[in-house]
């Protein structure tokens, strides 16, 4: 009995943890730190997730994908939102940051630490191509809610930066 419960729990967790972000399809919800817990109760698997950027259109897709993944693993799937503790980019795992870098996106520095005064940043993101710290902001807002556009002053390549929040 105990074994079958924990086995179901394990399968449900594996299924939920494999779901990826539609806007960053190489990274899983677990690596993003969105997936907080998965529990199984009477055949229903409940994935508890923390919402990311307010109004992020990926949210609804992620929830749908979680339900689908849990269904495919043989469960009735549900998603619960957990608002506290709030998700920040500090929840992204080291593996998540490595994957971002590998895909040309500079991972976020510590949440709440980049924005200070006007016309300045506390820390410049590292160029994911050459590793230089000499970067400059091109646009605070990019193709998705989570990304800004920067340019490397060493290798001159433009790159996206996962905004700390």
């Amino acid at each position: 009995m105990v074994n079958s419960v924990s086995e179901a729990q394990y399968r449900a967790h594996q299924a939920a943890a494999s779901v990826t972000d539609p806007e960053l399809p190489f990274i899983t919800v677990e690596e993003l730190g969105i997936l907080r817990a998965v529990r199984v109760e009477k055949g229903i698997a409940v994935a508890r997730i923390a919402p990311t950027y307010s109004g992020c259109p990926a949210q609804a897709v992620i929830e749908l994908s979680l339900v689908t993944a849990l269904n495919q693993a043989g469960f009735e799937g549900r998603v619960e939102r957990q608002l506290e503790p709030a998700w920040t980019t500090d929840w992204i795992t080291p593996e998540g940051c490595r994957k971002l870098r590998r895909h040309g996106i500079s991972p976020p520095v510590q949440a709440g630490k980049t924005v200070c005064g006007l016309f300045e940043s506390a820390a410049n993101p590292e160029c994911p191509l050459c590793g230089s710290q000499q970067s400059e902001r091109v646009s605070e807002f990019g193709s998705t809610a989570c990304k800004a556009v920067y340019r490397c002053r060493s290798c001159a390549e433009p790159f996206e930066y996962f905004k700390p929040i």
Partner: protein
Amino acid sequence: MGCAAFARALLELADDHLILGHRLSECCGHAPILEEDLAMPNLALDLIGRARELYSRAGEVEGLGRSEDEFAYLRSEREFLNCLLVERPNRDFAHIMLRQFYFSNFMELYWLRAADSRDATVRGAAAKSVNEMKYHIRHSGEWIVRLGDGTGESARRAAEAVGELQFYIDELFIPSASAEICFETGLLPDRRSMREEWDQRVERVFTMAKLDFPEPVPALTGGRTGRHDECLGHLLAEMQHLQRVYPGAEW
């Protein structure tokens, strides 16, 4: 009583976010440069996303089963409780940025104080919003400086925006009767307590922008009791059109 007051105060807050978010979304495709065309819809998304969360919570607290869509699409002008500042029309880029600058500076101070609310949804919203507002403040603040300290025309327009929006500042800091109850019961922060810090922040940036800080003027109020400018009706007509013509439409 406590619940009704909390639901109403949450609606005030949610309406501020939705209406300003909608105003910004009107700029999509009309911004002067590409970076701004990315920025404004992104800022709008933050605000509309926050509004959704607050409407959901208001619906739960109210207990009448109203959904976020019903709050947004099926209330009339007189039922909207947003402050007048956020509904001001997009007269020009200076107006848009100044409105954003005033509001985001206020909201960052508000959310900082909301971090110890008794309500978990408010605390969760506060934790996220504080970081988001930093981006809104930096974005609009940099533009205030560029415009105010820019060309003759940009400086003139920035000064005009200051002159026109000055009447709508005070209302941000006036708690409604419902907000007052929520402050006394530890659910929401005291709006009055942010004034001094807000003035200092705005003044600092205005100095950089070579703009004159607005003199105290008689405040225009009424938003919190549903008395709005004509411009809100036009905004709602566009925003609610689809739900009014095809009730219950989903996509």
